[in-house]
């Protein structure tokens, strides 16, 4: 391949568009991790085979795209450009779609979205409630391109922002656009990106060295898969953002630090970087200017703590990723002691759009007014992974400032199975649980922090009223105990102690003084820990203590778990009314604790029961009860 020029870029874009116009339609099969787990590739292969057999290859093409976002309904296929979306595909559906829709021109009603409200079918993707309220900047190309084809990205205007930046703008002007946009780091901290870049530029100038640039793709938060999806769906958007950033701050070398546990994202990123190099969009003298920049990949070995910026930079030197005190910031002394700008995947993916449409345009989206200071609002959009006890799980992008209520009930379709929303957990494991009565809170950096949680990188986990909040706190603390790097005392020892106390409470052995002690120790961990992870680690305990104190009291004083979760405080029994003696539960019980002949009432021997809950899971008659 040879290096391309700015004119070539336009030609590739035109060519790509005219190629797609040659087809009657493109069949975009979602190949995000969720859909792949649901056999998306098998469906794609079958589709290609079917088209070939029916001689439709020149009329229709099949493209495996990155994550479409509507993961709950996968596997998915979008017929483009008309916009029909098919859901929950099975292998048998392939020939139906080809015959009915493609050949006979009658879209297949049965495979379309059913509204949970009125049970009507919604044929077009854009009309489905889940998509309607989203605003796509970061995910602008999701489900629309083949992420492994750079020409597809260029076809949708990709690399135009880089071309514009290098040919028309000075580094300083780029910095100004980013500052005007008011964008704040999407990795969790919400530090204004423009200010970060500016500090890095000035420390690099002082020491007369080229700074480093890093993309943090070490998405370690359980319950979050935004960064993974962005890279899987649109890796070039991240590469282009990094290249523009490098031009602005004067970096020559950049790194993406990505978890090895994300093999698909890793592979797509690697391919994308190679394609960009082949086109000369990375490497020496990009677009024949004096600007040279290249990107290398570091594969993380999956440790939550490695997402912390100083830890990540240590890991990039091949050492154990432990954090350092950041009284001297990484923009001054980062990777290998040199000034380093680190932003996460989502932040980088925003940059090309900010350059293309202008910082001012960006600053108008979102909440607050960032025209004077980025600290006075949260501009732009944010991608969330919306999961848990919710109808429409998936990946959503919404403008900052939207309320949790809108996300949960409108986009997410509410809590299913007639249950009530109890809390929404945000900010990853060291975030907090926001109770249902605060769902009208706008989602932005500062409001979430004030509510005792945080934005984090964007996991939103909805919990219904069957979840025990003490157990939830214990779950997160257990996670953090395992993930604490162990370097400083309060985080290493303090979390173990909190874990012990929470275990005592969930086992019904708690004492009234435990509540006071929990908050006291939590405060110390928060104040005295070495890094921000330690500083936020007690949040799960603190936020549940704040909003769900009654539940703690129920465990401690009444020795009861109101949600029926904590094993030591519950009992499984079989209801006389509902049990019809079908014999399924005794068969599945791993401890042979259930007795009773067929057609007779089954009973549980409490001395044998390990409270695994399998009987309740397999019972089709709701006969197994928890008390």
């Amino acid at each position, binding site marked *: 391949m040879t290096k391309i020029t700015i004119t070539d870029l336009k030609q590739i874009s035109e060519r790509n568009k005219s190629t797609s116009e040659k087809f009657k339609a493109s069949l975009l099969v979602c190949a995000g991790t969720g859909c792949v787990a649901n056999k998306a590739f098998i469906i794609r292969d079958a589709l290609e085979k079917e088209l070939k057999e029916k001689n439709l290859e020149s009329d229709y093409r099949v493209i495996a795209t990155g994550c479409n976002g509507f993961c709950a309904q996968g596997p998915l296929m979008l017929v483009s450009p008309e916009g029909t979306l098919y859901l929950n595909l099975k292998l048998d559906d392939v020939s139906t779609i080809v015959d009915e829709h493609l050949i006979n021109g009658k879209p297949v009603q049965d495979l379309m979205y059913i509204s949970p409200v009125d049970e009507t079918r919604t044929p077009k993707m854009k009309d489905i409630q889940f998509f309607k309220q989203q605003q796509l900047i970061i995910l602008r190309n999701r489900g629309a391109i083949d992420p492994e084809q750079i020409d597809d990205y260029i076809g949708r205007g990709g690399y135009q922002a880089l071309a514009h930046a290098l040919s028309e703008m000075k580094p300083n002007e780029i910095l100004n656009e980013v500052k005007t946009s008011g964008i704040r780091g999407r990795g969790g901290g919400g530090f204004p990106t423009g200010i970060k870049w500016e500090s890095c530029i000035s420390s690099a100038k002082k020491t007369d060295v080229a700074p480093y640039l890093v993309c943090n793709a070490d998405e370690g938060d359980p319950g979050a898969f935004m960064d993974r999806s962005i890279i899987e769906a649109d890796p070039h958007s991240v590469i282009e953002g990094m290249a523009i950033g490098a031009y602005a701050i004067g970096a020559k070398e950049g790194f993406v630090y990505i978890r090895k546990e994300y093999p698909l994202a890793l592979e797509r990123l690697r391919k994308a970087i190679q394609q960009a190099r082949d086109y000369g969009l990375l490497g020496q003298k990009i677009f024949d200017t004096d600007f040279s920049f290249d990107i290398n990949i570091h594969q993380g070995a999956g440790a939550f703590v490695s997402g912390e910026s100083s830890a990540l930079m240590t890991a990039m030197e091949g050492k154990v990723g432990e954090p350092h005190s950041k009284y001297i910031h990484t923009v001054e002394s980062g990777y290998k002691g040199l000034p380093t700008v680190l932003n996460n995947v989502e932040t980088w993916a925003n940059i090309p759009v900010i350059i293309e449409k202008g910082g001012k345009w960006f600053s108008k989206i979102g909440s607050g007014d960032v025209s004077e200071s980025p600290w006075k609002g949260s501009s732009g959009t944010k991608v969330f992974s919306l999961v848990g006890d919710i109808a429409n799980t998936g990946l959503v992008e919404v403008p900052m400032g939207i309320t949790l209520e809108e996300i949960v009930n409108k986009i997410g379709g509410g809590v299913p199975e007639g249950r009530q929303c109890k809390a929404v957990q945000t900010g990853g494991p060291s975030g907090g649980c926001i109770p249902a009565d605060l769902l009208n809170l706008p989602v932005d950096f500062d409001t979430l922090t004030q509510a005792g949680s945080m934005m984090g990188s964007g996991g939103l986990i909805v919990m219904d009223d069957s979840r025990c909040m003490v157990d939830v706190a214990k779950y997160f603390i257990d996670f953090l105990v395992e993930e604490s*790097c162990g370097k400083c*005392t309060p985080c*290493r*020892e303090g979390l*173990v102690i909190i874990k012990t106390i929470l275990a005592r409470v969930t086992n019904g052995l708690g004492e009234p003084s435990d509540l006071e002690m929990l908050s006291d120790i939590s405060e110390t961990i928060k104040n005295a820990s070495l890094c921000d992870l330690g500083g936020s680690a007690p949040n799960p305990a603190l936020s549940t203590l704040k909003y769900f104190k009654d539940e703690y009291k129920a465990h401690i004083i009444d020795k009861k778990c109101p949600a029926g979760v904590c094993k030591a405080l519950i009992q499984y029994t079989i209801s006389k009314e509902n049990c019809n003696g079908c014999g399924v539960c005794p068969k599945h019980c791993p401890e042979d604790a259930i007795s009773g002949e067929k057609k007779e009432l089954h009973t549980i021997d409490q001395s044998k029961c390990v409270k695994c809950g399998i009987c309740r899971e397999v019972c089709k008659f709701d006969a197994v009860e928890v008390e």
Partner: protein
Amino acid sequence: MGESEMVKITIDGQETEVEDGTTIMKAADKLDIEIPSLCYHPRIGALGNCRLCVSEITKENKSKVVSSCNYPIRKKDEGLSVSTKSDTIIKTRKNVLEMMLSRWPNVPVIKYLAEEYGVQKPRYSHPLADESENACVLCGRCVNACKNIMQQNIIDFSYQGYRRQVVMPFDEMNPDCLGCGTCTYVCPTGAISLTDDPNNPADSELLKEVGLSHSLEIHTLDPKQNEMSTVGTTHLVPIMNEFDLLPVQNFRFGNHPGADNIGSKAYRKRFDSGFDGCWAGCPVACSHVVANFQPRTGPFSGQKVYVDGPEYETIAGCGSNLGIFNPDTITEINFYCDTYGIDTISFGTAMAFAMECYEMGQIDNKATGGLELRFGNEDAALEILHQMAKGEGFGKIVGQGIRNMKKLFVEKYDADPNILNDIGMEAKGLEYSEYVTKESLAQQGGYGLALKGPQHDEAWLIFLDMVHNLMPTFEQKAEALHWFPMFRTWFGLCGLCKLPWNDIVPEDNKTTPEPAKVMKHVEWYSKYFTAVTGRKTAPEDIITLSERVYNFQRLFNLRMGFGKREHDNVPYRSVGPVTVEEYESRQDRYDKELKEKVGIDPSGMSTKEKRDALRKYREAEYEKLKDAVYKRRGWNVQGMPTLEKIKELGIDFQEVLELLKKQ
């Protein structure tokens, strides 16, 4: 070296001004505010692991808890208020100590700190409680000492989180371990011990016991006594100046108002805080580096260089003795001497001699190649140094040393040989070390009777003799000039440094019968010797060990033509005032000496007459000293070991006997 900016802050209400980048810990230390810590160790630096050293910083009504050991006070912190004792801080420390105490209930250092903060029994029990008294508390000192001080990778952390532990890989003995013991030294709990000392000592338990006591004492007392680990030997400059012992302008005078500019005060600011000890595990670590120094002359002009030093001898020799009181010039001379491979004492003393000859008119600027070789001419001193290295110009002559210069100046420039002999500060061909010995007869012997020439490491008796007057008789002086050279020779025999012997002394040393000998330490040294060799050794055995070698050295000198009474002569400048000006600078003292000791009434005499009378007396005293010392050492009046002595020491080898017969 640009002066760094200063930042004004308050700590616990006290205003202070610190250099940009100073940590809260160091700033507080200067105000004598104590901040507790487990992982901080001045040799290792800040780790930020234990979190006991937290303090609360407030600026513009915003407060934050930070670790004092590594929070750097920067220009942006101007006006910052630091509290090391706020309610939040006390509570945080209590809680952190409670966590530690719950995990390691029996570790003394934790128990002690917990008690100090009133933490009794923890409110909870720790599932991983370790009852051991010397449990590892994961402070990380040892790991960092191994990595950063020793530049080794023998031990490290392993595992994550609460599973964290310090190990050698695979929990097996690391074959690369030198057994230096640095980790055991820095460990606050005694969790690490040397199991397999590669030096294979006969009694490693005894060795460890003495070594740890000694290290601990140095560690505790050095900061209170001389601060050698911070300022090296530069603390000696103000002391010597105060006692009139700092050589100024070729040993003419013993003090100078400029001395303050070149002592510990000046170098404390210049020395790099990093470790520069000879041996990585050394608790004294007196050696210090001036980092990023920019020489203004010579081949490294304008570049940034590291300078190893300067120590006291260099400062006195290349500074005050040359009339130079600029600490940066001294650093530069130090740097070039090191780079060129020139000894700073010889250079300083030789240079001082050349300068005095020039000022006296014994040589002129034709001889010096046009250089104005006056005292205090910094550029000229540096120029001579560069010439010396290149083997060019007058530098080449100075480089040959005082003994050769004396000969040359007489032959070539018609200089006065008597004056040159009086002021040329060399004996046995070696230039004098940097102490003024005029008022201490014992130290005149300490220099003059030293086998290698007038060097301070055989005997340093000035304070005992002159300041404390502890050895009024010849016999006492002779005893000292026997014991000290012998004991100090023993350090050379064993390859040991003598600073831990008497530069850091036990707190009760003053009240012992012979404080100068620091007998507690001498006993430790005999224990070291016993532990390493397995030969039971008492303090007096050490002296015998040395005596053999010392006599052998004297015999060697003799064989080379330097071992007789005449070779123990010294220049008069080291004995008394050579010039009228020198006499007058200490007139009261000298007049008194004439009256009380010599029995002459000085009133009515001219200074010149008084000077000559004093000289006659002092020269005779020195000769008497020789007799007394020779006798104590078992030598004859010619200064040669007697047959009996040689037999007694068991060194009556054939060759030795023949050598003595020949004389």
